[in-house]
């Protein structure tokens, strides 16, 4: 099977994380030929792809063209990482034009700039793996399932569930630390509560997330404007 990795505007981490699979990367190479991956290879290809992985937000005209090309050339498209699935931190800019002027003055820049939006807002995607960063194991599983012709299933439970399974002390209720675990999609194995810190919501909302309930609990710990900033850091709920 032919695999392509495409980077739009982001921190580079989602593409990099694929290389962090180490020996599992060699397992993937048993099933896939990576024909396009600009961060890792100078080879350029115009081939049809079985699977395209797209990371980052659509923030420029160039990003949109790369995304459309990836969609048109591929059978199966995976939006990888919270930038691609929910917009992540850079997607939370309210007024791109004003922000741009503030930073660059009157200069127009080398290409047209858009409001940073997730890949899923622009093209249909076949599967989305959120996370900033995403869980490498999850990507590995999804690629292996696809190689075997199995449609992968998205995780629909909150981070809280993984925290309970690990028997971590509840940082929100026991320690009074702001934590978005109750409303954030699981799949990260509750990495932040494992450090004794609150979940920052980097995987975006879980299914059936009770946002008003979350806000009520957080009101005892945080001023209201901070609650909304916290909730809107990685996803537009």
């Amino acid at each position, binding site marked *: 099977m032919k695999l392509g990795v495409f980077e739009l505007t982001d921190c580079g981490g989602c593409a990099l994380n694929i290389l962090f699979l180490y020996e599992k990367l060699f397992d993937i190479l048993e099933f896939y030929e990576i024909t396009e991956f600009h961060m*890792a290879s100078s080879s350029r290809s115009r081939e049809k792809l079985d699977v395209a992985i797209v990371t980052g937000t659509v923030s420029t005209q160039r990003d949109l063209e790369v995304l459309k090309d990836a969609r048109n050339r591929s059978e199966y498209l995976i939006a990888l990482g919270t930038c691609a699935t929910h917009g992540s931190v*850079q997607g939370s800019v309210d007024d*791109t034009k004003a922000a*741009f002027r503030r930073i660059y003055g009157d200069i127009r820049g*080398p290409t047209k*700039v858009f409001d940073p939006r997730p890949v899923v807002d622009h093209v249909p995607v076949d599967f989305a793996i959120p996370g900033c960063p995403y869980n490498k194991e999850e990507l590995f599983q999804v690629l292996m399932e696809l190689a075997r012709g199995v449609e992968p299933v998205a995780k629909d439970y909150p981070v809280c569930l993984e925290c309970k399974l690990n028997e971590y002390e509840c940082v929100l209720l026991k320690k009074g630390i702001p934590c978005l675990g109750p409303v954030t999609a699981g799949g990260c194995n509750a990495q932040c509560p494992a450090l004794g810190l609150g979940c920052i919501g980097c995987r975006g909302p879980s299914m059936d997330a009770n946002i008003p309930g979350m806000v009520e609990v957080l009101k005892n710990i945080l001023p209201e404007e901070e609650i909304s900033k916290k909730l809107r850091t990685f996803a537009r709920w």
Partner: protein
Amino acid sequence: MIIELDEFTRVEGVGKAEIVVENGTIKEARVKILEGPRFFEVLTLGRNYWDVPDLEARICAICYLSHSIASVRAIENALKIDVPESVNKLRELGLWGEIIESHSLHLYLLALPDVLGYPDAISMVQRHGEIIKEGLAIKALGNTIREVIGGREIHGINVKPGGFGRYPSEAELENIAKHARSLVRFARRVVGIFASQEPRGAKAETAMTTSEYLWGDELIIEGERIQYEDLEEVPVSYSFAKHTYYKGSPIFVGALARVLLKGIAESGEAERLLREHREKIESRYVIYNNLAQAIELVYALEKVSKICEELLCEGIEKVIVEPEEKEGEGVGYVEAPRGVLVHHYRIEDGKIVWSNTITPTAFNQGIMELSLLEDARRMYGSLPEDSLKAKLEEVIRAFDPCISCSVHFVKM
């Protein structure tokens, strides 16, 4: 006529370049950063200082810990938070881990294919599998250190103003020290490979570093001690990254600048390797940033085991120090793997009201262009256009550019 270099490959982020030819001579070279703007300075505004290092980490995946630590140091300077010596040592350990992770990624997976004549590391596996595996083993140690200190391989949230969320165990430190020591002999091999490169690119005449090896309260440039405000920033119409100059000269930051200006002290193998290759390093050609990184990789492995041993011997004070003040202004200078990184905040009532970030790739924009210009002049006409483009891209790669970082270089 314009010779267009396609979007750079084997670098982080989206950028390309063009060489302007007029009447058969090279007139100009432009590096065009096309990565979309990412607005981090705007995003930090109005946020509680506690949440900001986690947000700033997202600027870059390859050097997230450098961003977290620069952010935390700026906040601690602003709010007068004085952390214990062991907290600083753990942060140093994290930064050395990041240098190990980042340099090994660049040297083994991105730059080595240039030296050995391959399009990528994956196609090198058949004939040079061993060295790729050595590189991956070193890189994995770098990531382990980032995980232990930062909380995750990428974008961890464990580095906090005043200390850490979770402190490492003795077993973790012992494990890191043991692995670091055993990897030195692998890293040594890659030094020889990069010493074989021919001199290319411009000379790093105006090199800049932080005042201590990994951080500092001042910057050192050409024998002078300055603050970053003493540099001159110029926006350019063809790129999302601005250019920086010191007294009219383009600046160079990175491993070559560090090794040149600070040398390598109190280490065994790295010090010996630096002596062996001193002439090449002192020639200042930017292609030898690769060589400097390779020597620094050995240095990092030696430092890591030393710091772990010190921490195991002296013990760790497991605290999160509360701020004395709720407002103030502070700068954090850190040596990211690619060079000087600046975070600067003004904080009022615990919230960020003004914010500025300058990254190493932004500092290096000017000398990147100068390198393309000089090399294009040297090689134009004597090579087919495709080979010329490939050679020019190799020089860009030697800067180890991190383009995602460079696009929010701003003074607000």
